[in-house]
């Protein structure tokens, strides 16, 4: 063997180094090594076809098929916006009426004076005149109508009014529900 750094003095040493014997490891060296070597392509551990859900989390996430649950019809308890507005108006009207009734009956408040203080005399006089006209007109109409059609017919008119209002509310809710489903 010759190279850039070799010289004649080193040749005998280089030759002797080439003849240096190999040392022998222990007799079971290879077996010890192979015991800790994962041979590629070894038979893999069989995996069950259907993985069972694990009760304890170990950091391993098994791929489990998603189950399809039957979907039951659940009533939609949410109300449409018109229905909410109508309900709010009804509750507000009822509350206002009860409040007014309480003020008048319990505290004996003069309603006209009370409203005058709140809204002013002009507005109250205007509303009062309209209400008086409406009451007079409605009273005359009701009187003439009841006289004309009788008490039973009047009850039927009131009942039809209530039924119409109920049907209108139901129609509004149905329309709102249909629009949501279409969206």
């Amino acid at each position, binding site marked *: *063997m010759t*190279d*850039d*750094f*070799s010289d004649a*003095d*080193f040749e*005998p*040493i*280089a030759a*002797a*180094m*080439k*003849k*240096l*014997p*190999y*040392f*022998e*490891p*222990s007799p079971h*060296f*290879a*077996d*010890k*090594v*192979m015991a*800790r*070597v*994962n*041979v*590629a*392509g*070894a038979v893999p551990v069989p995996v069950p076809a259907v993985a069972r859900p694990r009760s304890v989390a170990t950091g391993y996430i098994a791929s489990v098929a998603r189950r399809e649950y039957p979907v039951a019809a659940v009533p939609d308890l949410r109300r449409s916006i018109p229905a909410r507005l109508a309900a709010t108006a009804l509750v507000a009207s009822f509350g206002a009426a009860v409040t007014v009734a309480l003020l008048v009956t319990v505290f004996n408040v003069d309603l006209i004076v009370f409203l005058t203080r709140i809204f002013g005399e002009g507005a109250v006089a205007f509303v009062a005149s309209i209400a008086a006209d409406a009451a007079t007109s409605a009273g005359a109409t009701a009187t003439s109508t009841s006289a004309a059609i009788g008490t039973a017919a009047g009850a039927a008119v009131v009942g039809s009014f209530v039924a119409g209002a109920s049907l209108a509310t139901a129609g509004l809710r149905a329309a709102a529900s249909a629009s949501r489903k279409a969206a």
Partner: protein
Amino acid sequence: MPAGAVSPPLSGLSDPAVVDLAKMGSEAAYRELLTRYERPVFSLVFRMVRDRETAEDLSQETFIKVLNNLDRYSPEFKFSSWLFKIANNLTIDHLRRRRLDTISIEGAPDAVTSESARATSIAVVSGNESPLEELESRELGTAIERAIAKLRPEYRACIMLRHVEDKSYEEIAEIVKLPLGTVKTYIHRARHELREALGDVR
């Protein structure tokens, strides 16, 4: 495992071919690689650490690391170079962690009886030499072993890879992860020190 236990077709294959078979799951291929290189690797490591048990552990660690990572082996490099590189890295890391006393291949220095000397001696693979040649060779070999043991570990690895394993400078640079110029310098200094140490023996 004795060399003869490996099936004849494997022993005639090149290293990359055996590695390919090992990658395909042939345990015999793994054992063939072990058979080919257990002695060179063990000898290199033993001459570095001068302790049989440590050399055995480091050699085992080397093979386990290499054989468990055959997928990372790139055929463009020599398998032996890759193997020696892992062995050298592990050995140098070990030597950096712990500085070891040297022992002679004739037995531990503190062996006072022939039995204890035999118990601590290292089995070597002898060649076909006459008794006189063997004696002379053994004498020179022992002197070289002692001289090598006194070299710095970096010099030791380079000079053994060059003159025992017959590796090229480029291969040595790849194995020890040093620049080519540094490797040449190390080998030059190692030769100089060996000449100095063996002046009387030759």
